[in-house]
């Protein structure tokens, strides 16, 4: 018994001495949301980083997306940052960056990003002329379309090459049964794409909606034409209805394409994996991902985009140097290119987009890459608010009077409502 007790005490002593062996190793806590492909990529890159930096250990934790924002917010509000590096949606960055809870991006790294990253992915990271984080992807909801290959082949029509052709084709195939739309000609209006198309329509006419102070003004002829076109496609041409707005993502545009209830829709490339994994579809067989033609022939295909996922370091982190070393590692073009391919992400850096390795690894991104140069930052505001007002205005016009005067009045009201209710950072 005594021997056993002695052995136990010796073991306890040895165990208590273990932490001392780890002295000199800095632990960086890293939080992301749960996404199988993204998490797997991060795990691989963390192993690579730890091998190259034996003095740093990454404690990688992930959380369900639905609770992730609240979790980050609570953590940063607590003041004693539960993590050192956070994966943050760009739209949330506006809130965080302006409140002094994030560490400023090191000057040299910031200069590199300013030179190489696309404007939309940096816009939300900037506050008072300083950057607070680094982008890892470019969120895009304009420029490419998911097309139901089977339906197009059955119709005998080739894929349209101009926007007007697309609308004309969509009108021919759309079928409405009372309030139910049994076949959608083309989906261009869901919670994400409606505002993206509206703003792109304004920009492609050579117009502008952003004022110098970051607020918006839709009392312009370009906005009038843009809204009239979008409303007309649903209210008069009946190529689409509101299901993708009123039902949220449950019956999102791309899901209707997957269910053979829509000929196609505008969507970001992230839906490709959803169609393949959730619906068992095969790209090139069941659907195609092709370029979206500009709204007007012969114009630059300008569009506004709302950032993407980024990485940031908490201001209260006690291991800021190590944390930034990790973020900079993940943001190196040769690392980022592998991460963007593995996660089916649009690259936030011009150098990655131009890297042949990227296109070789993600050939389905081809329709988008040449359009990234025309991107603009959507504006320094929380996009949930502008999307909500856009959706309501669009649905109200489609459901009632949508004469030129009615559209003008609706745009004036939307501008006024946004001035009152949308915070400009």
């Amino acid at each position, binding site marked *: 018994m005594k021997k056993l007790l002695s052995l136990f005490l010796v073991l306890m002593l040895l165990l208590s001495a273990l932490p001392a062996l780890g002295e000199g190793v800095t632990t960086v806590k890293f939080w992301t949301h749960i996404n199988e492909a993204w998490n797997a990529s991060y795990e691989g890159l963390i192993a690579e980083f730890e091998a190259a930096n034996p003095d740093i250990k990454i404690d990688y934790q992930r959380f369900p997306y639905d609770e992730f924002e609240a979790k980050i917010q609570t953590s940063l509000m607590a003041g004693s940052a539960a993590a050192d590096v956070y994966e943050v949606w760009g739209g949330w960055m506006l809130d965080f960056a302006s409140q002094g809870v994030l560490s400023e991006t090191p000057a040299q790294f910031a200069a590199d990003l300013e030179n190489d990253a696309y404007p939309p992915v940096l816009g939300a990271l900037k506050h008072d002329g300083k950057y607070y984080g680094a982008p890892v992807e470019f969120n895009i909801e304009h420029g490419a379309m998911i097309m139901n290959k089977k339906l197009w082949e059955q119709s005998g029509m080739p894929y349209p090459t101009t926007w007007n052709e697309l609308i004309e084709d969509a009108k021919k195939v759309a079928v409405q*049964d009372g309030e139910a739309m049994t076949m959608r000609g083309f989906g261009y209006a869901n919670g994400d794409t409606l505002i993206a198309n509206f703003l792109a329509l304004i920009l492609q006419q050579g117009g502008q909606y952003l004022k110098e102070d970051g607020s918006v003004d839709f009392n312009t002829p370009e906005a009038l034409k843009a809204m009239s076109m979008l409303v007309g496609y649903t209210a008069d041409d009946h190529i689409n209805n*509101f299901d993708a707005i*009123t039902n*949220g993502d449950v*019956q999102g545009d791309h899901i209707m394409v997957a269910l053979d209830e829509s000929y196609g829709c505008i969507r970001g490339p992230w839906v490709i994996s959803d169609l393949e994994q959730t619906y068992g579809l095969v790209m090139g067989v069941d659907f195609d991902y092709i370029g979206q033609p500009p709204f007007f022939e012969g114009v630059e295909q300008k569009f506004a985009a709302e950032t993407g996922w980024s990485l940031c370091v908490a201001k209260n982190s006690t291991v800021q140097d190590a944390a930034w070393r990790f973020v900079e590692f993940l943001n190196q073009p040769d690392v980022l290119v592998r991460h963007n391919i593995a996660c089916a992400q649009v690259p936030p850096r011009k150098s990655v987009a131009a890297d042949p390795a990227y296109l070789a690894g993600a050939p389905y991104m081809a329709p988008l890459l040449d359009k990234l140069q025309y991107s603009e930052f959507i504006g320094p505001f929380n996009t949930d608010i502008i999307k*909500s007002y856009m959706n*309501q205005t669009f649905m109200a016009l489609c459901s009632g009077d949508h004469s030129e005067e009615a559209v003008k009045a609706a745009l004036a009201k939307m501008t006024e409502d946004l001035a009152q209710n949308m915070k400009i950072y």
Partner: protein
Amino acid sequence: MKRTIFPYLVLAPLILLLIVFLVLPILGSFVISLLDYNPLRETGNTFIWFDNFKRLLGNELFGISFKNTLTYVFIMVSINLVVTLLIAQLLTTLSSNKWRSLFRVLLFMPCVAPLAAVSVIWQKGILPTKGGLLNIFLSNFGVAPINWLGNASVLMPSLLIVSLWADIGYNIILFISGLQGIPQDYMDAAKIDGAGPIRRFWQVTFPLLGRTFSYVTAMTLISQFQAFAQFSILAPGGGIARAGYVLSTYIYDMGFGNKDMGFASAISLTLFLVILVVTLIQQRVNRVDWGY
């Protein structure tokens, strides 16, 4: 002396819990409503006194959500009370214990499921315009497909149907308990006096059910004023024409979307006052001064 202190000592933990988790948060919410408060901000959460409450006056979204909330609560509570009392009365008249238990279990089952999950099931399986169970059922009677969530005039009825389905089981159980607590002697006496089933219900059962009815009404009112999950899922952004935008979703949007916690707290306190006033009126109207 010991006799005087003992009840307080026994109640102290409970009172402490109520103070910490109920009274203090309400007071905290009141203080926050007087601030320009962003929870992320380290400094600059300044007192603006009653400015947040002034913002509510003439605010279009507040007006819409307030009106929708009152409409929803009034219709929901009215239908809920009538339907649940009727079903409870029918169940208590069943002579077979087995059948009574079976129906009780079946009707209570929706209450066990989380409302968010229930809402998703309705959204995905029952309410879709094409392929939804409700439209398939109605098509048997020649009814054309209805866009339950995308038509401003039917969105609120859709939300009411979902809420009723999810909520009635709880009140049925409470009413059954109340009905079973009424002594049989009163019914027997009424029968001897020649009262029929309807007269017995209105003149004996319903008055004697007063305490249960008052409790059920108050609880249903409070819970329906706070309804959130079904609105958030079935009417994202308030739904078409904001026909499904209620105060709880407005509070969420302002607090967590706009990070304007001061304004969100002002709306919360307004909702709190509305619930308080409505409940007090209801308690006054349904006051019961007797016992059996």
